[in-house]
């Protein structure tokens, strides 16, 4: 393992330390953000939330945050164990850019914008442009994720995650569904079923056209499964030691169907 001369930016460190403990990474310099308080908080201004990159998963479980970002809160609750949720951060989840990162499908579904900072100044990047592959981002070596901006919840939000155990498990497949009742928009994104998070644009457009937006109902109950099938078709899963591509695609179908059913009751 070649030593990396650049300082490693340490947020929660939960991914980083596993690599160090197992000799997959040899740090020579570390810049810890653990006590940079300005990265820790979140604030609401108007209809948007600015979430500090250092916000821990446990902080997202607080009721005030949950009201504004229910799917993100639910995703945070599925992350690892209490110990991990007390340590890991949303900024770390983004920077690690694992397709199994639990908060990422929610951030994709919400069209999150990531503020990135360096000595050259700040830039704002849509999350789907920041993450370009499994554990690959467009972050420059000297750039740091400062905050993430998402819209405040304006409708039902769901996050469902399949794991082979009832707790503390890496996602085999996950689905985030967010509804913007004001703008009559649906966002849906899939985790663990492709090299990056996958956005389900065609399924979203189909469902948006079928929903009775005045009542937030779905007149045609066949649409639930059509939606699930379109999301499954958008997925691009692989076989690995955690599951099979066939099951993952099927799982997306079931989760997306259920997510839409939870968000919109049937009937005109």
């Amino acid at each position, binding site marked *: 393992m070649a030593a990396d001369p650049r300082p490693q930016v340490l947020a929660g460190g939960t991914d980083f330390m596993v690599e160090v403990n197992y000799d997959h990474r040899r740090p020579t310099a570390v810049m810890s953000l653990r006590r940079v308080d300005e990265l820790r908080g979140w604030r609401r201004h108007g209809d948007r939330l600015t979430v500090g990159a250092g916000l821990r998963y446990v902080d997202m479980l607080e009721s005030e945050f949950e009201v504004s970002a229910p799917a993100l809160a639910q995703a945070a609750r599925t992350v690892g164990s209490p110990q991990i949720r007390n340590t890991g951060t949303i900024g770390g989840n983004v920077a690690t850019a694992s397709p199994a990162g639990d908060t990422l499908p929610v951030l994709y579904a919400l069209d999150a914008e990531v503020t990135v900072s360096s000595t050259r100044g700040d830039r704002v990047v849509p999350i789907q442009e920041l993450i370009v592959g499994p554990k690959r981002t467009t972050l420059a070596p000297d750039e740091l994720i400062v905050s993430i901006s998402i819209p405040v919840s304006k409708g039902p939000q769901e996050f*469902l995650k399949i794991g082979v*155990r009832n*707790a503390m498990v890496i996602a085999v497949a996950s689905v985030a569904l967010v509804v913007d009742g004001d703008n009559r928009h649906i966002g849906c994104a899939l985790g663990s079923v492709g090299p990056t998070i996958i956005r389900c644009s065609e399924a979203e457009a189909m469902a948006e056209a079928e929903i009775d937006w005045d009542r937030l109902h779905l007149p045609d109950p066949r649409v639930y499964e059509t939606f699930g099938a379109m999301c499954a078709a958008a997925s691009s899963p692989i076989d690995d030691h955690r599951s099979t591509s066939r099951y993952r695609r099927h799982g997306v179908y079931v989760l997306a169907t259920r997510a839409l059913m939870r968000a919109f009751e049937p009937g005109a």
Partner: protein
Amino acid sequence: MADGVRVVDRPRTGIGVSTRRPDGGPKVRGEFAYSSDLHADRMLWGRTLRSPHAHARILSIDIGPALTIPGVSAVLTADDVPGRPTYGLTVPDQPVLARDIVRYEGEPVAIVAADHPDTARRAIASIVVEYEVLEAITDPQRALQSPAIHPDGNLIRTVPIRRGDVDAVGSVVVEGTYEMGIQDQAFLGPESGMAVPDGAGGVDLYVATQGLHQDHAQVAPCLGLAPEQVRLHLAGTGGAFGAREDLSMHVHACMLALHVNRPVKMSYLRDESFVGHVRRHPAHMWFRHHATPEGRLVKVEAQILLDGGAYASTSAYTAANSARFACGPYRVPNAVIDATCVRTNNAPSGAMRGFGVVQVCYAHESQMDKLAAAVGLDPVEIRLRNVLARGDELVTGQTVDVPAPVRECLEAAASVPMPPPASDVDDYGLPGGAGRTADRARIRRGVGYAVGFKNLAYAEGYDDDTRARCRLDGGVATITCAAAELGQGFVTVAEQITRTVLGVDQVVLAPASTATIGSAGSSASSRQTYMSGAAIAMACRQVAEGARRAVAHRHAVAVEALEIDEGRIVSRDLSIDIPIGRASEEPLEAEVNHHHRETFPMDPVTGQGDTDVSWVFAANRAVVDVDLDLGLVRVVQMATGQDVGKALNPLSVVGQIEGAVSQGLGLAVMEEVVTTDGIVRNPSFTDYLIPTTADMPPVEITLIEEPEDGAPFGAKGVGETACLSSTPAVVAAIRAATGLELSRVPVRPEDIALADVRREG
């Protein structure tokens, strides 16, 4: 009662009471010294270079780069093994360090000692090994047709059983093939220990193990040392479940310590642990059950294939267990059974809780449910019609001459009240748990039953004797016994037995070591309470006899005039009444060597023979909720009826059962070492999943107490049996919920969600 000695229940600390563990305080305070906690001045860290290939020829090893790293004190290879180059629990077929060939991924190739674990791993990474990769034989079904992987050949053992009329047929026949993946013991305390050279050419090894003396018998020859030059001492052991039957870092740490003349500690990381110990044999099994229209068994046919991995370990005996227990605890008049264990380029298989029986219990219980369906009986009734009872013969021809409360175990499990319906459960308690995936309309509940049994202690003529010494001095009883405490609570029971027999309050358990006493045998096969517990009771009784003689002498009365009664020496006329602890001015000491009853080999053609010492029985009922669409399972409740003989410490027995059930549950729905061409894909707790709190339901336990004559206070060993029947019970419950065949464990979500069989929505 055993040996005619009166058993006295002392309310505070004696037999039958849930006394506290003597090591409980240190363990909850974090002060208990586990093998990985050891430290010594000038201590170095050892580390192992392992093969990345499942099968390869070693063309060259260049240790030069490692030797140049500052802080590295030693780099050793096969050339440096001072004594016998191989070791093994039953056959010395496994190299201490690979020389020409590596036969599984993870096989040790070189070892280093360095001043810091990071230095040691950099040294390991710098060693250059040139391999010629060979085809890996990893499919056990191909092993016997493949070139020999090892000079000993690819067949480890075939065990046939032919019983009664081998041509008998039943009017009802059910058939099935079953498969079991690799289960890892996944103890939490890593393989670890510290070797300390004695300055005179010998070495002391402080190590976590199940059997100090069986380790010693392998370590000393490999070091080329006389037995007395090598002393093994039990360090705190963080679980075992069979995985510490075989050596891991033992010889390596000693080699390094002797080479550098400094203490050397080795402690495996979790990824290393997954290839650093033997695991449960994966199995392919075919069964055909014949029965009458009333569901009475006529004949069982079974073909069992176990993957032994690259080296023999205990595979030959595992195969024998698979054969002998293939029919389950049922009356089976006719049987044709063959169990075969083969060698492959997978990591070695060996002992794990339930030793060869877990595999067949899953198969025979699956068959019994098929049979129930075929003859129109419910799963409990089909079992009750066939259960073994005391006096029945096994398929080996041996008569079950100990309590066999199979019916009572099953009826107890079946009569536990059902848990509340899923509709009463919060989201987190539904299938999928934290992931909040459940749709309540798509959850089905299922109930399944299973029974199982297994032998207690070693079999087939093996005399796994045990030694214990009791010394009574100044009212304090000191027990010396080399039995390994792994967590199971032997230390608690040892104290209880001593207090009960001698009536003393103060009991000291001397450290377990090869230096102070002979072998107690291994903490394996549910045998330690039964064997070493008996030895301690006998030693204490001999001390009590000595006390009786001492009192008789002092009071100038005939020995026969005195009785041993509730820890006191009492004369018939009650004029003498002295606690045993104060009976003698001089220390009293006794050492016993206890043997179980003689057993005999299996006939090589028919498998017949009085092979076993005793048997233990258990039954489980499982209640599960299944998400039909996602195939996610939540086990809602387990109910266990357990034959215990006599519960010496009921709380400890409950703990054994709950732990065994959790491992059986894990095997049913999540635990599997996944390999591709012999390479382990999931060597971590991130990907090898064991049950969490969220996966374990309440276990409702009924202890069936029918004391066994000759056993210590009537107690049987209870470490394993609940693990046998919990796996098939969970799978049966999933079948009941889904209507699926489920012929492989662990049952994966895709096995349910993507099954082709149609079922009711």
